[in-house]
C-alpha cells in the first residue's frame, strides 16, 4: 500500500494556507513509506506553512532505509527544498535553522549537494 502512487488517492488538496506559526521551534518528519521521497500530501502540508520565524530545528527521519535502495524521486525534494529555503530565510532565530537527516543511510553520495537552496541559508546535519 505504501508504494501506491499519489494519484491512486482520490484527491490531493493543495490550496490551503495556514496562518503564521510564531511559536513553532521544532518540526519532525518521519518517512514511513518504502519510498525515499516525501509524498505530495506531506509537501502540501509543509508548503501551506507560510511563516515559522522561531523554527530552529527540522528533523527528517526514515524508519525503513533497508528497503529503499534505488528508489529516489527528485521532484518532491525540489518542492521541499524551495519551502525549506524560504522558511530558513525568514527565520529570526540566532544561529539559523538546522536540518537534521536522521537515520540516513551511510555511504550514499546521493546526499552530496542535497537540498541545495536550503544549504545556502541553513545548516544540514546527517545522522546515520
Amino acid at each position, binding site marked *: 500500500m505504501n508504494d501506491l502512487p499519489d494519484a491512486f488517492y482520490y484527491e490531493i488538496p493543495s490550496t490551503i494556507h495556514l496562518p503564521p506559526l510564531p511559536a513553532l521551534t521544532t518540526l519532525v518528519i518521519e518517512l514511513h513509506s518504502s519510498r525515499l521521497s516525501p509524498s505530495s500530501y506531506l509537501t*502540501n502540508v509543509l508548503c501551506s506553512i507560510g511563516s515559522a520565524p522561531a523554527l530552529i530545528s527540522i528533523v527528517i527521519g526514515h524508519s525503513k532505509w533497508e528497503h529503499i535502495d534505488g528508489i529516489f524521486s527528485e521532484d518532491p525534494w525540489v518542492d521541499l527544498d524551495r519551502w525549506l529555503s524560504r522558511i530558513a530565510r525568514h527565520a529570526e532565530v540566532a544561529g539559523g535553522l538546522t536540518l537534521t537527516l536522521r537515520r540516513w543511510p551511510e555511504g550514499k553520495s546521493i546526499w552530496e549537494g542535497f537540498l541545495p537552496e536550503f544549504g545556502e541559508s541553513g545548516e544540514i546535519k546527517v545522522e546515520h
Partner: protein
Amino acid sequence: MDSIPQELIDTIIDNVPESSLLSCSLVAKRWRRKSQRRAFDTISFSFEEDMDCWCTDIPQDSDGISSYVRRLKIEEISSWAEPALFSRMLESLSSLTTLLMDATEIPDELPGHISRGEFGNGITTLYLGHSSYTPAMMAMILSLPNLKELCIENCEVMPEGPLPTHPVTPQRRPLDSLGLYGSVDGVAEALAESQLTFGRFSSNVGITGVAQLLLVSSEMLVELKLYDSAWFLRVPRPSRDDSERSSRCFLL
C-alpha cells in the same frame, strides 16, 4: 533483612521482572508495599465482570491497592451492560493519571460525572482507539480538567452515526500534546470546532484535519511531527457532509 536500607529494597524491586513482583511482595512486610505499587501501577480489563470484581473486592481505602493504580486500560467493551460500572471504577482509582480506552464505548453519563468533579481530576493522559466517534467522546475530552496529552487513533464518525457535536464548556487550558493517527475522519474537524488548543501535534492523518487543527492552535504550536505514511496519504472518502467539510477547509 531489617538491616537492608529501604532504598536498596526499592531499587531491587524497581529492577526485577514484572513476573517476580508477586513473589517480591511476599518476601517481607517492607517489600510488600513497593512491590504492590509496581504490580498495580497499570491494570487492564476486557470484561465487565472483572471490573465488577475489582470494584467489589478491592478495598477502596485511600492508602490501599486501588490507590496504587496510575494507568487503567479498558479494551473491547464495545457496549456496556452496566454503564455505571465505568464510573465506579474511575471513582475507585484516586491516583489515576492515564486512561487508555481501546475499542471501548464511553457511556453517555460519564462526562457529566467528570464535569461535576466527582472523579477524573487526576487524569492527564487519555488514549482513545478503534472506536466509532460519539458525542460522549468529545464531551469526555472536554470535561477532563487537567488533561495534558490526548491521543486518538482510528476513531471515525460513522456515516449513519451522529454528527460531531460537543457541549458548550468553559474555555479549558491548552493540551501539551495532541496525537491523531489512522482513520479519524470527522474527529479532527470536531476537535478543531471545539477550539481545543495544544502545544505539540503529531499525526499521520490527511491534510484536511491537520489544516483545521493547526489553524486553531497556530499561536501556541511549538512542535509539529508528521508521519509520512500510507495513512498520511489517506484523505476522507466522500460522505454525506464531505462537500461541506472540504469547502470549509479549502477556504482557510
